[in-house]
């Protein structure tokens, strides 16, 4: 279990804090608009000069430059050539047209009491393991409406391959049908299909299953990513983006899901029981496009995507490890220093994405603090850039309450910024790679997504990976929205107690 020690931030003296705020604001305004501020006096001077000179003097100056036809033609060609090279080498803009999340049927609901009862009945000889699960569940941040697939509701669970396929069909086809309805996409028009599901990889693949069901084209570029953990959704987006650079005028459908049925751990090792308590049914289907015609109806534009892999270090590699326990039950072993490793991976990712998204003021401060620590005094506190200036919304993978708490602390985010993540964890549990999309859906359902807003999606996954994506909102999303939150958004946000007494 991860211990959370959340001490409230120290409140500085009010007058000094206000002074600090204004100084900071002034500094930010100065640095961020430096070029503009520099340009204004130059323009003013030039304009004044022009007015002073008068039109005849200007014409005289131009004539003295001795332009002839050759000069003009060469210059024009140069300009046209440079612009063409520029526009051709610019990467194509990737638009996120729309996405849909799977809403589990209410009959799959698993209240805490039922979960604990089943745990007790299935692990009848291991009361300590049951106690452990109860403690995890109490502090998990999940609610009473999360859902598990039907095969896990049996006493004892019956995770057959048939049941796993049924779950896959249910979640994936429902999400895809919804996506087709929302976007008007015809199945025959899909050019690229990428499916990511970490722990269930049958033959034929899940992407083949989709192609079979919807009768997709024979020259479709399909990909099935398995084993890549909870950050696989952003990996799929990355792959789609690269493919869409090569194929003009195309679209790509990404399906992110995690199939719970075959991976329900049936042994009694505590470190491996944790995923049972947190992982729940979910799926998302996303439509990306590089067509200019989709520019108007797309919801988001992809700005940046940064992938960081820490697998070169043994510590990171082994921290989320699937293995057999002493009784040959397969489960996923979560190491105790998972949070520390996640923090390291996040720092790595931030170092790369920071320069791409942070305004100049923050970068300068960070650079100064870095140089200062290296040259002058290593004891200087490292400056944590204020990402709230770069983004309006944050989607932190709802891996567990500890992950969200840790990131909130590290990035100094307010409760409102992490609300989407916490509420997704409460309502849907940890749906693995699709959780980012449920969180985005929450923000839209709350009516907070305005045109021009920037969203930062951060996902962690086994390996250990930290991937992040930056989207820019293309239009204001009006409520009420159609999605997994449509029937319950009015109840949110809810207060989630530290410990729910079972």
């Amino acid at each position, binding site marked *: 279990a991860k211990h959370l020690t959340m001490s409230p931030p120290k409140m500085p003296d009010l007058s000094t804090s206000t002074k600090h705020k204004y100084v900071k604001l002034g500094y930010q305004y100065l640095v961020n608009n430096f070029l503009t501020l520099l340009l204004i006096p130059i323009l003013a001077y030039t304009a004044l000069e022009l007015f002073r000179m008068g039109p005849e003097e200007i014409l005289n100056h131009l004539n003295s430059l001795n332009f002839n036809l050759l000069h003009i033609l060469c210059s024009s060609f140069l300009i046209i050539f440079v612009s063409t090279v520029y526009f051709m080498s610019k990467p194509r803009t990737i638009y996120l047209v729309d996405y849909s999340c799977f809403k589990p049927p*209410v009959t799959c*609901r698993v*209240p805490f009491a039922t979960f604990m009862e089943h745990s007790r*009945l299935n692990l009848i000889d291991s009361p300590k393991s049951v106690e452990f699960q109860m403690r995890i569940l109490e502090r998990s941040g999940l609610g009473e409406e999360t859902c598990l697939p*039907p095969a896990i509701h049996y*006493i004892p669970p019956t995770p057959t391959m048939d049941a796993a396929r049924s779950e896959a069909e249910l979640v994936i086809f429902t999400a895809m049908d919804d996506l087709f309805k929302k976007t008007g996409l015809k199945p025959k028009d899909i050019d690229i299909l990428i499916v990511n599901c970490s722990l269930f990889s049958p033959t034929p693949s899940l992407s083949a299953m989709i192609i079979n069901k919807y009768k997709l084209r024979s020259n479709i570029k399909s990909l099935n990513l398995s084993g890549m953990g909870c950050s696989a959704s952003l990996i799929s987006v990355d792959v789609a983006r690269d493919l869409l650079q090569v194929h003009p005028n195309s679209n790509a459908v990404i399906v992110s899901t995690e199939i719970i049925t075959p991976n329900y751990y049936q042994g009694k090792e505590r470190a491996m029981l944790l995923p049972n308590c947190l992982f729940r049914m979910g799926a998302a289907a996303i439509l990306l496009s590089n067509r200019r015609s989709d520019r108007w109806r797309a919801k988001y534009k992809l700005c940046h995507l940064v992938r960081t892999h820490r697998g070169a270090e043994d510590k990171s590699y082994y921290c989320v490890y699937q293995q057999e326990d002493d009784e040959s039950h397969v489960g996923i072993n979560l190491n105790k220093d998972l949070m520390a490793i996640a923090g390291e991976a996040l720092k790595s990712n931030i170092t790369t994405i920071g320069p791409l998204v942070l305004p100049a003021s923050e970068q300068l401060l960070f650079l100064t603090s870095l140089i200062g620590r290296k040259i002058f005094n290593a004891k200087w506190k490292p400056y944590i850039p204020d990402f709230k200036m770069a983004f309006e919304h944050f989607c932190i993978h709802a891996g567990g309450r500890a992950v969200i708490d840790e990131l909130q602390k590290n990035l100094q985010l307010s409760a409102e910024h992490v609300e989407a993540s916490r509420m997704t964890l409460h309502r849907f549990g940890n749906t693995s790679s699709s959780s980012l999309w449920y969180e985005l859906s929450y923000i839209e359902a709350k009516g907070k997504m305005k045109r021009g807003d920037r969203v930062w999606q951060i996902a962690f996954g086994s390996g250990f990976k930290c991937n992040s994506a930056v989207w820019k909102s293309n239009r204001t999303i009006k409520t009420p929205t159609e999605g997994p939150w449509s029937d319950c958004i009015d109840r949110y946000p809810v207060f989630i107690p530290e410990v729910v007494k079972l």
Partner: protein
Amino acid sequence: MFAKEKTVMEENRVRLICKRTVVSTKPVEQGRLYRFSVFDHVMEPNHIRFVYYYQSSKTREPGEITKKLRESLAYTLNCYPIVTGRLVKETDGTEENRWKVKSNDAGVRMIEARATGTVEEWRRSVNREEELKLVHWEDMYHLPYYWSTFYVQVTEFESGGLAIGLSCTHLLADPVCAMMFIRTWADLTLTRNMMTPPIFHSLPPRRFSSHKLSNNQLLSHYIKYCSLTAPPLNITEDHMVTITLLFPDPMVQSGENEAGLTAFEILSGLFCVCVSRAKGKRNELTDMSLCLDVRKLLRLDQSYFGNCMVYHKVHYSKPVKAIDRLLLLSYVVQEIHNVTKGLLDYHAVMDLVEWLGSNNNNPISNGSDLVCTNLENMGNPRPMMFEEDLMLSHLSCYVEGPVAGGGQVIVLPSSSGDGPMSRVVMVSLPQREMVKVLEDELLQSFSPVLLWRLQNKKINKD
């Protein structure tokens, strides 16, 4: 021919598919505690089992109807937080160490099974033990907090038809509200509307000023029988068997033309007379208790959820002589009528409620009495249908525990095809007595149809 049927019976015809928990679709308000009434506490050691048989005129995919029923059950449970809760014993200051229900949203257990053949074939050749395979029950666990108080079993018959089994502890429900649960579930499945949602509340207090009866037979019965401990020896020795009889028109057969008699009264009287003779009693009648629903008496709606049935012993005011059996029958029916219409009244019941609340901590036992339970009105006003084409063909009811006494006669409504005055009676008696009862000419004069075969015994009538 009989030998072949016997092997068919012994084959394992019911195949368990899975066991799971069904929860309500909406989360319950956490932390509510429901208290039981005095009627509930007094019935604690018993449990009830029902089996509803449906015949279908449509062929379905295996598992299709089970899935639909499971979903509608989840919606039905939204109205039954008591049923999805779990038993806890909490010392509350005033009420020490008594059971309560904590509504924690845990759900009910559901068992799914398949059976070979059709419902008709099953009913023709099955006995009590086999039938109980269609309704799952688990005795209370060592840790009652993880023990489901209700069990639902859906068995699909491979060649057509369906059996729905419901079992529950008597602490929470009596046969009337268990049948109402099925009715609510059926209505919701068929019409997507909950027509008779349950009502939960404590028993209403006395309406008028206290009026202790000088001769409250109901109360004396309880006072005596609540202190009975071990069941009398002859029950455990002799093997109990259960059969089901269909009486096409008991009122006409009896020749009784006094207004106000019900089929239940006539049938109970009939069995009292036959069982007395089977027991070898020449000049006396067997001890008999009637199990009657007092919701109407207490001005409670039929949807009141909780125990509301009482046991009233029948007293014979005159000494009995074994003369004309029809006269004997008439006499017994009159005594029964006196109980249902006269002796069992509001004040008697309220005196009982008060006594149970203040003086009694023991459950009731019916000793070795013959217990006659009246459920004949549970088929009104409309049949319990889950789907348009599923016709309820038969209903079985079992009550197990100390209240089962020395023999049971449960009078149930009959399916509409048999006529409005027909009744189905489930009779449980020690084997020796059962044989004699079935051969009794008085019983035969009512032209009962034997719906089942008696276990291990050849019966001439069919």
